[in-house]
């Protein structure tokens, strides 16, 4: 069996498992899993830039929040239907990531990280500044009646789970396809050796900008999905913490693997879920995990798995 066939089977059966566990797991866990799938979309968007292109951003909360507010504000103030508002969220994320990308990509390395961090911080402050409309840290609720798509009530447990699964699957498959395409291969080449890629005749600057935009739009889609499925929009999602989370998830799950982001979110979600019962200082776990990862498993869970057992893992 060829690697690409294996890979297709792996991806499809993974989705099938997610579709089936809904019937097995108790309600509490399916609710969690819906949330995990949406956050995994965010992680996949981040992974596209960090894991495949080798650009470490500390400002992805901005893209997530842009998608979230793009959907939330248009529904709240322009009474858009959920579908059109979702598109609006994606367009906002596209514009913001194109602008941030064009500016931030003028720098490399540490400066790139700090610039993305600062733009994201500015975004957070802007949300607070316009608190009259955005409701600031408090956030606002999207009415239950508005959260319907093609007749399906998305606040219903079952509908929500499968809506999350469909969105997750689309992003999951599209990204898997993309990283195996000539375009994705070029991004990997840029990650491995940017100077060499340039001297093979690739327009590295253009590729990196497109990567930022794709990553931003996917992260924005995650933000819009989150707002739509869980009915809440708030500035918390624009804080630095939400720029650190995707980095943490991707590092934990395995940067540059298609399945790593989901694994990272799953582990981290339950780690925090379990520890928050014991202590309010649950972010301690995140800190410890980050340090341990850099020390002992820089490849993450899926990365170590690929290195040791399944060399063909995509």
């Amino acid at each position, binding site marked *: 069996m060829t690697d690409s066939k294996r890979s297709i089977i792996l991806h499809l059966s993974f989705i099938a498992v997610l579709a089936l566990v809904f019937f097995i797991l108790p309600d509490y866990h399916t609710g969690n899993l819906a949330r995990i799938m949406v956050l995994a979309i965010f992680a996949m968007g981040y992974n596209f830039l960090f894991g495949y292109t080798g650009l470490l951003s500390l400002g992805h909360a901005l893209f997530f929040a842009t998608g979230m507010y793009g959907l939330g504000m248009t529904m709240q103030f322009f009474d858009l239907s959920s579908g059109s508002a979702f598109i609006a969220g994606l367009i906002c994320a596209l514009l913001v990531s194109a602008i941030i990308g064009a500016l931030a990509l003028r720098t490399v390395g540490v400066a790139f990280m700090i610039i993305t961090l600062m733009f994201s911080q500015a975004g957070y402050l802007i949300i607070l500044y316009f608190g009259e409309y955005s409701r600031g840290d408090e956030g606002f609720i999207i009415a239950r009646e508005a959260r319907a798509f093609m007749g399906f009530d998305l606040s219903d447990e079952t509908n929500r789970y499968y809506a999350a699964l469909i969105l997750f699957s689309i992003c999951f498959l599209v990204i898997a396809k993309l990283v195996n*395409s*000539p375009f994705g*291969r*070029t991004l*990997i*080449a840029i990650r*491995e*050796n940017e*100077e*060499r*890629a*340039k*001297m*093979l*005749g*690739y*327009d*590295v600057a253009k590729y990196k900008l497109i990567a930022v935009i794709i990553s931003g739009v996917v992260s924005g889609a995650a933000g819009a999905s989150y707002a739509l499925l869980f009915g809440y929009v708030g500035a918390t999602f624009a804080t630095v913490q939400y720029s650190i989370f995707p980095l943490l998830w991707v590092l934990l799950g395995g940067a540059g693997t298609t399945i790593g982001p989901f694994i990272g979110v799953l582990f981290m979600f339950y780690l925090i879920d379990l520890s928050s019962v014991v202590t309010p200082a649950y972010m301690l776990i995140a800190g410890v995990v980050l340090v341990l990862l850099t020390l002992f498993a820089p490849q993450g869970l899926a990365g170590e798995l690929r290195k040791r057992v399944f060399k063909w893992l995509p």
Partner: protein
Amino acid sequence: MAAVNILTTQNLTKSYGGNVANNSIDFELPTGKVMALIGPNGAGKSTFVGMLCGRIEATEGQVFFDGQNISKLPAHERIALGIAYTFQITSVFSGLTLHENVALAARRYLGKDTEAVEAKVAAVLQRVGLSDRAQQIAGDLSYGHQRILEIAMGLAQDPRLFILDEPTQGLAETEVQDFIKLIRSFTDKTTILLIEHNMDVVMNAADYITVLNFGEILAAGTPQEISANAAVQAAYLGTDPDA
């Protein structure tokens, strides 16, 4: 119509602050030949080729490739016109397979035509004798094989001009002989500009030699003319114990 000279430069100059690394270089590279660029360390060879392929911005002067002024083009556009470049210090995608390394080079101009890319990769690997290692990770290869891989990546681009920056550095004597044979076999399609320290390679592989000293062209001619040139002997060959 192919120009007589595939590449020419006029008044090409690079200065860093007050230091002139290259001073007003007028250079001609005849199509289909192997040209060696030699000169003592610090003569400005790397700066010169850096300006040719766009890695280094020229302070002044022009570069013409196949009659077209490419002085203002960024590196990747020059490469796309048909210039291939191999680095002085081995620079491959060390985390990827050998096959993928070469495929990346071919894919840039063959695009999504997977079959054409596969055929090109197979042909190139065959030609340089690395076919049986196609699935190895490039970083695991020996140093000599990595240098060959670099050349394979250059070849896979079907370049009209192939610039090799010290390709034999660090190779064993037997590998050098194979290398000369390989280089000579390219000239049917490709013009070659070779920066080289090893005089053995220069004398055996090159049709023409240009000698750079203190950022200026000291002499240019056939290997016989150069080895007979007194100024060159004084400036370069005479001071080099390997010569």
